[in-house]
């Protein structure tokens, strides 16, 4: 008993132990670097989008002083409040007036690089503020895409020189472009906006929510509370689990083959897009809904049944209200996924060039992710920054929705 050599004293053991500890450290380091890599990619992704996107919210603008009244354009507040005010100003030759004013203040060379649609900005400024027409006012008007590239030291050398000259004269500058959030798609990166796509996304999401939420919640209630355990219920469960994992593009094929065959007139409408996304979102809501319902303790059901409630009353008066926060969290997460979805909407034709915001559920529309995809295909350099700006808008919406889901989860989550 007394002459046992304690193994820790052995050299070989100490060596082995050292080796094992080194392996332990290596392993831990490998885990840490995996985490660091993943988070690093996330940070790199977000920061490169933000970096590019911030300049996407700006555009190169030329300062042009215009005296509208002096140029002979009759404006009064009453006329400008009409719906046809823009056409009226166009008929009076506002475009020429703007061009002329530009030549005077910028010279021939500079005026040639004013966007051809610049007069529309003047018109909308006048409509918003009729008093501008009575005096000389300096309008900030969009420069052409080529000049904007010149300002970033890209594109043709002549325009770079011109841009430098105009910039040092103080008439060409990068300004924050509020209109980006108000305009729709266009062919000129200086004139594009995100509102058309955003409105399309909102309309589509409304349809998706109205369809997927009731069906998903009711299906979850049935499966969790009433369904008898038999072959049919198994089939339903298997198909829901599989639907949740079917690639989104397959839902696009379904929408193309079924919905567009039923409603051929509604091609690229938010209605069809919303229905397609609803089929995709529904399984997510069912699965999260079932988990939330399962979490309601059976004593609640037993108590309600004991005082004489019918099975329907038990569920709709007691179980559902208690499970609702959990169901809502799942719904928001499912909706966030649907908001970022592109492929199925490409299938059903929501990729058309739509230059006006959609005015209803059946009007042709596009959505934010599809708009991002379309812009990313454009050759013009100016679209790169615009695409990043659109991505920032999309990510902000997703962040908002996920934040809401997390807030709901933390606020209402109950552990029984």
């Amino acid at each position, binding site marked *: 008993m007394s002459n046992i050599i304690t193994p820790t004293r052995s050299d070989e053991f100490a060596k082995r132990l050292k080796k*094992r*500890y080194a392996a332990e450290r290596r*392993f831990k380091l490998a885990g840490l670097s995996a*985490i660091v890599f993943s988070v690093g990619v996330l940070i790199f992704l977000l920061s490169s989008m933000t970096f590019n996107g911030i300049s996407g919210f700006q555009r190169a603008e030329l300062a042009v002083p215009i005296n509208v009244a002096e140029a002979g354009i009759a404006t009064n507040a009453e006329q400008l409040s009409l719906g046809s005010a823009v056409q009226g100003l166009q008929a009076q030759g506002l475009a020429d007036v703007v061009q002329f004013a530009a030549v005077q203040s910028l010279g021939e060379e500079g005026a040639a690089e004013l966007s051809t649609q610049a007069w529309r900005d003047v018109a909308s400024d006048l409509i918003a503020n009729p008093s501008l027409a009575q005096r000389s006012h300096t309008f900030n008007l969009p420069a052409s895409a080529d000049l904007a590239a010149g300002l970033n030291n890209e594109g043709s050398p002549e325009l770079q020189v011109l841009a430098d000259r105009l910039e040092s004269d103080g008439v060409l500058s990068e300004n924050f472009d509020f209109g980006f959030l108000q305009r729709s798609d266009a062919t000129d990166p200086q004139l594009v906006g995100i509102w058309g796509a955003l409105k399309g996304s909102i309309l589509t999401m409304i349809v998706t929510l109205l369809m997927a939420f009731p069906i998903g919640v*009711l299906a979850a209630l049935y499966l969790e509370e009433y369904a008898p355990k038999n072959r049919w219920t198994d089939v339903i469960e298997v198909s829901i689990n599989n639907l949740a994992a079917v*690639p989104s*593009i397959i839902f696009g*094929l*379904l929408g193309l083959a079924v919905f567009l065959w039923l409603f051929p007139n509604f091609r690229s409408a938010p209605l069809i897009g919303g229905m397609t996304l609803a089929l995709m979102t529904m399984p997510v809501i069912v699965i999260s809904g079932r988990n939330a319902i399962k979490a309601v303790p059976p004593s609640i059901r037993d108590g309600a049944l004991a005082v004489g409630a019918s099975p329907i009353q038990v569920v709709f008066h007691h179980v559902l209200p208690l499970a609702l926060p959990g169901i809502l969290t799942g719904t928001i997460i499912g909706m966030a996924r649907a908001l970022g979805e592109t492929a199925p909407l490409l299938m059903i034709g929501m990729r058309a060039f739509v230059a006006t915001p959609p005015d209803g559920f059946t009007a042709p529309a596009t959505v934010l992710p599809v708009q991002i995809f379309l812009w990313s295909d454009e050759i013009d350099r100016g679209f790169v920054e615009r695409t990043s700006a659109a*991505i920032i808008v999309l990510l902000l919406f997703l962040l908002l929705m996920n934040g809401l889901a997390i807030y709901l989860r933390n606020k209402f989550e109950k552990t029984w």
Partner: protein
Amino acid sequence: MSSITLFLIAIGLGLAGWLAARAKAWSFQQETSAKQMAARPNYHAWYVALWITIPAILFALVWTIVAPQLVLQSVLASEAAASLPEFGFQRQAILSEAQAVASGNASSVFNPAANDFIEPFREATSRYGLIGIAITAIIAFGCGLAAFLRLRPDFTARTRVERTVMFILLLASLVAILTTFGIFASLVFETFRFFGMVNPIDFLFGTFWGPDPMSNAENPDSSRYGAIPLFWGTIYIGAIIAMIVAIPLGLMSAIYLTQYANPKVRAWVKPALEILAGVPTVVYGYFAALTVAPAIRDLAFSVGFTNASSESALAAGLVMGVMIIPFVSSMADDSIAAVPSAMRDGSLAMGATTSETIRKVLVPAALPGIVAGVMLAISRAIGETMIVVMAAGAAANLTGNPLEAMTTVTFQIVAMLTGEGSFDHPATLSAFALGFVLFLVTLGLNFVALRVVKRFREAYE
């Protein structure tokens, strides 16, 4: 717009019926004593409201589908229709232009021939709109009245309402089956049409992919529809490159987070991974095309591969792998957490280090769950569309060089269906055949994976 009116009418009349029925039930309650009522007034109200809204909404749904056909029929029956081209694209274009103007979606027509049809369209639309409103109202009134007249103090309204609610619940859960069936039926139907034109053997085993949407649809060249390069591209990008990135990183992240990280780090890193999972695929695609692909090309150039293209399988695969990391990580997290802690504690008590415990005990025990997670991740990666559409390229190369452009099943589905080809052309229909293959493969992977997970859970419970 008119269908929304129909739904609003149905709901509005339902509300009116609800109020009327409740008032009547209240009056019963006043006359007789409350104890003799078989159901509370609200249930009488719901009974009538359901009888009003459900038939009316069903009709509105059918009408939404039928009415455009009726409008078209009546326009074609008008005098102007005699001048229409017999068939084909022009006829469609004229009609749809006229319809767009008539419904206010467009302000003017390009084709002057369409001008003749604007009036007939407008007229027919408003006529059928009115007919739809009238029939909806009649159905709602008729059913509502029938239900209203049945109300008695001893009427068992509650059981009837509850039976209906139960039925609606059942219907809602059947939507899932219906969707699965719809996917299956539409894919099978179009795939059969495709295989009527192109030999299935050529499709599944051919090695040259180059459908020409502009070729003669009657006599397609079967040898241009060999899908092997697409399958290879899909597997190479989604199941090989992406998994080489995602499996080690996802697994190690999960292990570090569950076994080593202190709770504070965990509280920050887990949501960050969730954000990574929540970034839309189009953003990843943009990132791959704009940042990763040029970087890889430049790197390849500097190493000496002068033939590297700006669209490469490697770029798409790498970014896809990053996208899948959180997915693998959360699946691995779940299966490691499902291993009973007694096994872990036993190993640690025997003197094993943490990493030895993880490698020799936890991971082997959690292996079925991890493998299932990887299978689900693969099924996700091969069904991923936007990253490959934006970064992988269109050329169907059958090669092992990751620096070359490569195309995938999902890319070709998008390309075939967003092109200019007609819907009856085999090139367009090939998209459905590719979709069917994709559907079957992902279905198989999911089915096996879910079974494995279930078995695995049962083994430790």
